[in-house]
């Protein structure tokens, strides 16, 4: 396996993928862990926000390292 991908890229992609898996498992019928309240919002909405903001912010940081 070629391993020239920086650790930052691996961690960023894996964290986003883990968040997505959390969403997919949480969306399955009969599960309720996404409804746990975390501060002002339920976990379900934090997951949506994280999935949308995470790739852009981490991607922009990665781009700066790459310049």
């Amino acid at each position, binding site marked *: 396996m*070629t391993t020239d991908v920086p650790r930052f890229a691996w961690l960023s992609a894996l964290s986003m993928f883990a968040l997505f898996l959390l*969403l997919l498992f949480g969306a399955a019928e009969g599960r309720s862990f996404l409804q746990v309240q975390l501060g002002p919002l*339920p976990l379900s909405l934090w997951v949506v926000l994280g999935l949308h*903001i995470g790739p852009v912010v981490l*991607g922009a940081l*990665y781009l700066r390292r790459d*310049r």
Partner: protein
Amino acid sequence: MSVTAVVCFAIVIGITLVITAIAARRTRSAADFYVAGGRISGTQNGLAIAGDFMSAATLLGTTALVFSVGYDAAIYLGASMVAFAIFIFFLTDKLRALGRFTFTDVLAARLDPVPIRALAAVTALVSALMYLMVQVVGAGALIQVLFDIDYAYAVVLVSLLMVIYVAVGGMLATTWVQITKAILLLVGISVLAFLTLAEFDFDIAALAQVAAERHSRPDALIAPGGLGLSTLASLSLGLGLAFGLLGSPHLLMRFFTVPDAYQARKSAVVAGACVAYVGLLIFFVVGWGTVAFVKGDPAYYDGAGVAGGENMVAVHLARHVGGDVFFGIMSAVAFATILAVVAGLTLACASAVSHDLYAGVFKRGAASEAQEVRVSRLTTVGVGVVMIFLGWAFEGQNVAYLVSLALAVAASTNFPLLVLAIYWDRFTTRAAILGGIAGLVTTITLTILSPAVWVSVLGNDDAVFPSPYPALYSMLAAITVMVLVSLLGPRDARAATRADD
């Protein structure tokens, strides 16, 4: 029919045709035709990818999902963001470094080019053509509702415009049509969200409260479960969407239009930002707004349910918060959305036939640039004609299963082929061919046996394969065959040379 809608409709067509005329004068070589000479900047390409990526399904379909099932629409939005994360961190720079015109170039750089081009061209064509057909059938129905144009003429209009953009203006025209659409969509959705929030004095909590009261399930907007998915169905749907987008030839092709790997990655970040912005507005404001204002309001319902179908709830919201003028503008935005996506898909089909099959397989690399571009233009015309007849033949039929099939094919063939070819030195041509065939056959077989075709189309009582989402199983089948054949079979001569390098 709204006068504003017709005026905006004419303006969109006029602008895109002017763009095509200008692009045609600048398109001379094969590189100009396929990848706009590689001269598109990262920001421009990011906007074009966003324009290519966000189909009418994103604007209208995802809003309709929030309206009907609530929170589970997040699966569709989240899948696209995960796809962009993988593009940014793993794929864009490799694609740009190894490919020239199509993603098949990347495979051909690592594996035996003739058989791998033949396979990848077939899988690219299957996924792009199915996706294109869904867009054309959907476009015909949508234009009929939005602009009161007969379905048959609407299909001809969309097909004719996509042929003109691609055959005359190539990638440069397609790029600028997509950029124009992306800007229209970003502005349109921003204004729609602004006007919706203005109805609640910009208090999003008040909007959420009214929407929750109107929905049939009070917690539907923040709690999952609206789609009623099992764990495996949820995984199969989500992973199929994410990896299907990563294997979509029309999106992959866009990363060859920029000058270097840095611009390719930048374009993925810009596109991801645009898609995230639109996704968040759809999920938190526009979707909730449709529930608050459209759900249960008799003004937007007829005997069959929501007037024009649930996909129309976003434009009904536009009429509610912005009147007829804004309704017309958002209708034109939806129309521009369709045009940009079908242009990208048509170019991907034309490239698969001319660059991969004709030049790469039949001519074994001996075709001239002029011959290749000529074949590409002829293919574009052929695709347009086929789409007109298929569009007419499938009028009024539910073709939604073709989206699932197109993405599952891309997820089970193009995506694993690409990732293994880039990242795994042991990957062999034989494994790629056998694994690709396994992925393709499994996807098509499971789709036919699923409820969407076996019950809804063929009229049987029970489906042989119970899930409507085959991607998880077909991806596993493809990857298992690819890995096992690579490990157990002889190494490629090319792969061995590469490992030595």
